[in-house]
Structures are given as C-alpha cells and as structure tokens.
C-alpha cells in the first residue's frame, strides 16, 4: 500500500481490528442459515443491468467480478487469477481461472466476460457505462482463459471497476439473443457466486443455497442464506433483537448505543455499500445564482457551519468531519493536512459585511451595494434536501440564521430532487450524499468536471467550471501509477477548497450489526457472506 499515510493506515487497522476482534474468538463452522435484513424488494436479481443498491445488496453473492477488493480497497483476484498492465495502462490483460462453472454446470470462459461488458454492462450498468464506454477501444478474447481490454489512452481506474458491484459477470449462454432487462433469468439467476438461487417470493424474501462447486475451495460455509425484505429500519433492529434476523446492513443512530451494549450482537463500521462507497454529505452552492457567485459568501456559509454539531446531532457520532474533498477512506487520494474553512462565526460575519451584506435590526442581512443584487434584497437562500436529510436542513437554518442568513429548507423526495437540482437547476444550496466510489475517477470527477453539469443526476451540482481542475482530472485519469496520481488529486483538492463550489460536511460510514452467533463477514464487499458462518 505505497503512498498511504501512516496515520490513516493505523486508523484503518483500528477499525478492522474492532470489526474482526470478536470473530477471532469464534471458530468458523460449516452449515447453518443466515437471515439478512434488506430494506427494499430488489424487483430483480441481475446486478449487471442496474446500479440500484437494492438489487446489488440482494444479488451480488450470486455473482463474481473479474477482480475482488480487499479490506483496504485494493484489487485482488476473483474470476481472473492474474493480470498485466501494458502500454502504460492502455492495455489490461487478464488470465482467467479454469475451474469456474456457472450454477447450471456450464463452463465459464472469456466469452462470458466479453459478452457481459459489450452486451450488458456497457449498455445498462449506469456507472460502468458512464465511466468506461467512451474510454474503451475494444475487448479481445485470444483464448478461453484470456481477456484483453484496450483503451484509447491510458486508463487508470480499471482494476477498481471490476468487482461484483461495478462489473458482475453474467452468463453468455443465458443472456445471448435476449433483452437483458426482461430475461427470465433476472428473477431466477444463474451466476458463478458462492450461493445459488433457490426461490424469490416477491416483496418478502430471497432464498439462496450453498454453491457446492464454488471455485474457492472450502467456501461458502453457510448452507443457506435468506434475504428478508424489511423496509422500516426500526423493525429491522427489533427483528435482530427478537432473533428473527442475523445481519443488518445499517443501524439507525439512536439504536446503536443499545445494540453496542448488548453482548448478543457485534457491530462494525464500513464505508462500503453496494449502492455507493465512501460517501460524504456535501453542501452544493449553485454558481448560477448571483448571490452565491461571490466566494466570500460561500466561505461565510462554510465558516458559519459547525460540522461537529452535524456529526453529533445528525449522525449520533457515526462518522467523521470531512477533512478534505476526497474521502479519507480512499487514503492514497485524500489530501492530508489540508486547510479547510473552520467554524468561526465572527469571521463569517466579517466576510458577509465585506461582501456588502449588512445586518439589519431584525438580525437578517440585506444587500447594501452587492454587485448584481438589487439594493435592499434580503440574504435568503433555499436548501434542497431528501426528506431523510431533514435534520441537515434544521441545523443549516439554525446555524446560518445566527450569522444573518435566512435559510429555507425544501425537502424533495429523491425522484423529484434529481430533476429539480440537475435538470431544472432550481435551487440555491442543497445537500447530497456524494459517494466517491472506489476511485476518484468514478465518484469524484463528476462533481467538478465542467462537462458534467446536468442533466444527469449526481454530477456537478454546483455548475463549477475551472479549466485547470479539468486538466488535472484528465491527467490523473490517464496516469496509472497510484503514487503519481496522489499529488495530482492533492492539487485538485487544494484548488477546490479555495474555490468552494461545495462544502464537505461529514463522511458517513454505516454500521453493520449481526448476531454474535454468526461471524466471518467481509463488510467491505458485496460478497460479504462468502466466508460467513452461524452457530446454531
């Protein structure tokens, strides 16, 4: 792990030890049933045609990627046993395992990989399509066990885009000559993964059974795995406490202390989620709104916000104040010791005064000579957010009210939020859980790159344009060596912290919880129960 700062590696180790500590005392045993609570009915079980967290949570154990990911987020072999990088990163050659069969007994070959990318992933998997399709020149299969990816120019993030979350491999003999979105196999899947499909009762549960011919010898340990649909997070916790389920993907903040104190349960924090990893709650400033064009106003908002209060009151301490625009979980790209705007109400007030926003008797500010703003206009902004993030709105209103900014929170459900912010651009500020993904090319570039300004959702919400930042992202994207990419991302972060198109509030890892009778979970991957066991 070259280039990883020591303190972050140490912190990661502490989290891992905390996560694995209880397991170390338990002896893995074969057999048993694991019941996992999932929040939504996935609708179908084909993770290659969607980025939906519901489908990926329920279905990734049925599949594999060419590569997997270890607890540090680095690529490890999965369906491919080895790889070489040629032509400075423009060509990637993968050697596949020869002992892999599909759940129906058919042999897995390189043709499956080529088909999965060309006919399924690059058409329907929104993330893979968005990041890879324009860069890829072609995929070749010189023989049954070799796959070659050729790119138009060096392409850095590929190795982190090949796991079951980003690029699950589906069977060519099942999907060829059909519409991948309506193929019956989407609800009766045939994969290569550690578990085989048994049954799917819509809206209720998905039952999986051990794959006895799984290519990783001795795995999986469980006989059966049941995914139980329980939409209400409170009911999920009750079901765990009542012994009805064994594993939760997340625990609401108010319930965490209770479960932590109960010896019947184990907990671990992770930043991985099948729907998006390494997420940071981020305030966007709409650069198209005149009052937010002045960096002093954006800085005043940033300095008027006490991020520690967000961490305590909204997340119940589950997370970290963001120390840089890129997640600290992506240690090699995260800029250490960056000077971020700090909470300082007096400085925020001084900046607003200097920008021409003067405090009146009722404590709100009005424009007194602000360029482009009518004289006497009140300093009022709206704050658009998902209903689930309403506490962020309350704190924004309260904290910015103290420096004379009138904030109106505007809750919009996700299906309305996306077009309002990214298509209509009808907002002043908002809060978004931007997930950085496994590589900045996947989840960070889209926030700052000038060609990523709408209408696609969760792109450059601020409408930020900076040629220098664009050029640096281009450079980082075609630089394959990680140690050379680190200083490029540092430069980017230094620039955006000065420009402040966003303000990065808190990193939001989630807490997994499970019955102490079970163990062996890999919280950092979609194949989380590949080596899990439960004692009965």
């Amino acid at each position, binding site marked *: 792990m070259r280039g990883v700062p020591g303190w972050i590696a140490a912190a990661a180790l502490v989290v891992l030890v905390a996560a694995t500590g209880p397991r170390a005392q338990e002896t893995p045993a074969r057999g048993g049933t694991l019941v996992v609570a999932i929040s939504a*009915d996935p609708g179908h079980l084909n993770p290659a045609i969607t980025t939906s967290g519901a489908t990926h949570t329920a279905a990734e154990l049925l599949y594999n990627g060419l590569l997997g990911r270890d607890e540090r987020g680095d690529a490890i072999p999965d369906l491919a046993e080895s790889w070489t990088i040629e032509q400075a990163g423009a060509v990637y050659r993968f050697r596949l395992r020869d002992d892999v069969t599909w759940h129906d007994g058919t042999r897995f070959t390189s043709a499956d990989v080529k088909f999965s990318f060309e006919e399924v992933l690059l058409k329907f998997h929104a993330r893979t399509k968005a990041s890879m399709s324009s860069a890829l020149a072609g995929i070749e299969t010189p023989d049954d066990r070799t796959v070659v990816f050729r790119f138009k120019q060096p392409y850095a993030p590929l190795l982190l885009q090949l796991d079951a979350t980003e690029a699950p491999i589906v069977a060519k003999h099942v999907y060829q000559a059909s519409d991948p979105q309506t193929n019956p196999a989407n609800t009766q899947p045939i994969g290569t993964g550690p578990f085989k499909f048994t049954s799917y009762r819509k809206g209720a549960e998905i039952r999986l059974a051990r794959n006895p011919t799984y290519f990783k010898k001795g795995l999986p340990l469980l006989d059966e795995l049941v995914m139980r649909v329980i939409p*209400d997070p409170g009911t999920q916790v009750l079901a765990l406490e009542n012994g009805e389920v064994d594993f939760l993907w997340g625990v609401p903040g108010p319930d965490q202390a209770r479960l932590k104190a109960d010896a019947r349960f184990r907990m671990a924090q992770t930043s991985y989620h099948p729907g998006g990893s390494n997420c940071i709650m981020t305030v966007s400033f709409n650069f198209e709104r005149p009052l937010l064009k002045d960096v002093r106003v954006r800085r005043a908002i940033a300095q008027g916000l006490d991020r520690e209060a967000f961490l305590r009151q909204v997340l119940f301490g589950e997370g970290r104040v963001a120390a840089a625009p890129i997640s600290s979980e992506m240690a090699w790209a995260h800029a250490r010791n960056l000077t971020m705007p700090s909470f300082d109400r007096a400085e925020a007030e001084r900046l607003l005064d200097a920008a021409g926003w003067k405090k009146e008797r009722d404590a709100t500010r009005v424009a007194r000579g602000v360029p482009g703003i009518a004289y006497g206009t009140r300093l009022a902004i709206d704050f658009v957010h998902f209903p689930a993030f309403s506490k962020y709105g309350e704190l924004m209103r309260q904290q910015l009210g103290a420096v004379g900014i009138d904030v109106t929170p505007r809750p*919009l459900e996700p*299906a309305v939020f996306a077009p309002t912010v990214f298509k209509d651009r009808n907002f002043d500020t908002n809060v978004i859980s931007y997930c950085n993904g496994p590589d900045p090319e996947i989840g960070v570039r889209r926030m700052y790159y000038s060609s990523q300004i709408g209408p696609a959702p969760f792109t450059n919400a601020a409408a930020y344009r900076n040629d220098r930042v664009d050029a640096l992202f281009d450079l980082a994207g075609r630089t394959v060596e990680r140690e050379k990419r680190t200083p490029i991302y540092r430069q980017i972060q230094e620039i955006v912290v000065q420009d402040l198109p966003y303000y990065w509030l808190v990193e939001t890892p989630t807490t997994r919880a499970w019955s102490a009778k079970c163990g062996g979970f890999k919280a950092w991957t979609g194949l989380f129960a590949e080596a899990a066991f439960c004692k009965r």
Partner: protein
Amino acid sequence: MSARYLLRRLAQLVPAVAGIVLVAFVIIHVAPGDPVLALAGQHGDVAYYAFMRAKFGLNRPLPEQLVVYAANVVRGDLGTSYVHGRPVVAVVLERLPATLLLMTTSLLASSLAGIALGVTAARRADRTADLLVRFAALVGYATPSFWLAQIAALTLALGTGLFPVQGISDARQAWTGWRYVGDVVHHLALPALVLAANELALTTRLVRAGVLDALTTDYIRTARAKGLPEPAVVRHALRNALLPVVTVIGGRIGMLFTGAVLVETVFAWPGLGLLLLSSIQTRDTPVLLALFLLVSLAVILTNVITDLTYAWLDPRIRYD
C-alpha cells in the same frame, strides 16, 4: 332487486374505470419526478437516460402515451413495470393475496368484535362495561395505526417474545402444509390486530348507538310486551342497527387499504401496501396506475355489495 338493476350498476363501472384511468394517468404524469432518473441512481449519462426513455416510451408526447396506455388497458395489458421488468399484472397479482388476507382478517375481526362490544355496551348503557367500551373505542379511534404498530411490536413481540415482528412466515424454517398455515396465522396476528383496532373502535361506537336507538322504538317495546326473550329482542334491534354499520364498513375499504400501507411497512408484510410505497418512491408509473385502478374498482364493487347487503338486511328496500 332485479337483475336489470344489477346489470345497470355493473355497467356504470365502465365510465367510472375510464375516468379513474384518465385522472390517475394525468395526476401521476403531472406530478414532479422522473422514473428514469429514479432508476439510474447516483450515476448515468445523458445517452443512458435518452436510451431508457425511448425504451419505456417516455419520450413520446403525454397525450400519445395516454392513448397507448388506454388502448392497452382495454386489451387487459397494464404494461411492464420499470423496476421489476415484468408484466404489471403479474407483479400486482403476486402481492394481492397477502393484502387480501390482512384486510379480510382485520375487517372480519373488527366487524364481529365491534358488533359484540357494541351490543354489550348498548345493553349495559351507562354502566361500567359501557363506559369501559366507550373509553376504549375512543382511544382506539384516536390512535394512529403506525404508532400502535410500533407499540405492539415493542410490547407484544419483543416484550413477550410470543409474536414475530416482521414478515408473513418464518425465515429460518420453510414450513409446508398445515404447519405453514399455522406459521402464517402466527405472523398475521399482530398486523391484523393493529389494522383492525381503528375499524373496531368505529364499528363498536356505531353499533352501540344504533342498538340503543332501536331498543327505544315501538316495535321493540311491542316485542318485549309480547314476552319475546331478551336475546331475540336484541337480534331484532341489531338487524336495524346494522344498516348504517354496513354502509360505513363498505365505504371504508379505501381507508383500510391506506391503513394497510402503514401496517405493511412497519411489519414488513409483503402485500400491495409495500408495493405502492416502493412504486411511489421509484416512480414506477405502470404499477402505480394498476394499483389505483385496483383500489378504485374494489371501492366501487364494495359499494355495490353494500347496496345488496342493505336490501338483504332491510326487506323494505327495493331496487329496480
């Protein structure tokens, strides 16, 4: 009641259904939100959205979409779910039994218990039993079902360990035969109880008031004067008292479905309520339209059935 009347009532369904389809279609499409953006989640590019819009026909003008949809409905084709990728009819039908079971059990339990409690209270008017029933009914009517559901889960399930808090069956044991039936009944108990609570309170109050009223009428006085035994007297009074109750129960099918959405969410009951909730969140328009159609049809048909029951309860009522 003539067959002609029945046919006429059923024929009225046609314009009603057409109106429902039109109104539901317009409301859903005019409301903000975009199914393709909801489907794509955090990522995607412009070409992907254009491709998905064309695939679902969302790039066509709204009137054209309506005509295509209406023509398909006439042929019995309610479309394909955006999220599930399967015909809507299949998606809805596989969830229907769970909701029917929950609603029927709640309706039966609340109606029977409500009649029993209402009669008991009326016969002991202003005595302790009556006061207790009236107080309980008032509390039951005023308690929101989502709150009651959580309290029931905490006390009756987690507190006693007697009931499960979620699902329609045991996740660890895939029972078959009568053991499966028993397992489902065990899981049904709490959600049905919570959903029934509100209806039970209303039915109790209505029956009590109706029976009290009937007990003071001349024909009851005559019956008593003739020496009719008290249970037979109450039976006569009850038959008249039930008329408004039947009307109210019939009219509350829609409300019961609303309650089912909340109760199904808390207890993870895999029925139409959960499907409705997830379809709203993902803007799965074809599923939403089908659910509107189904619930509206259920309300209309229940009203027809209510009218028929009315005539059966009161032979003086004639339809022609």
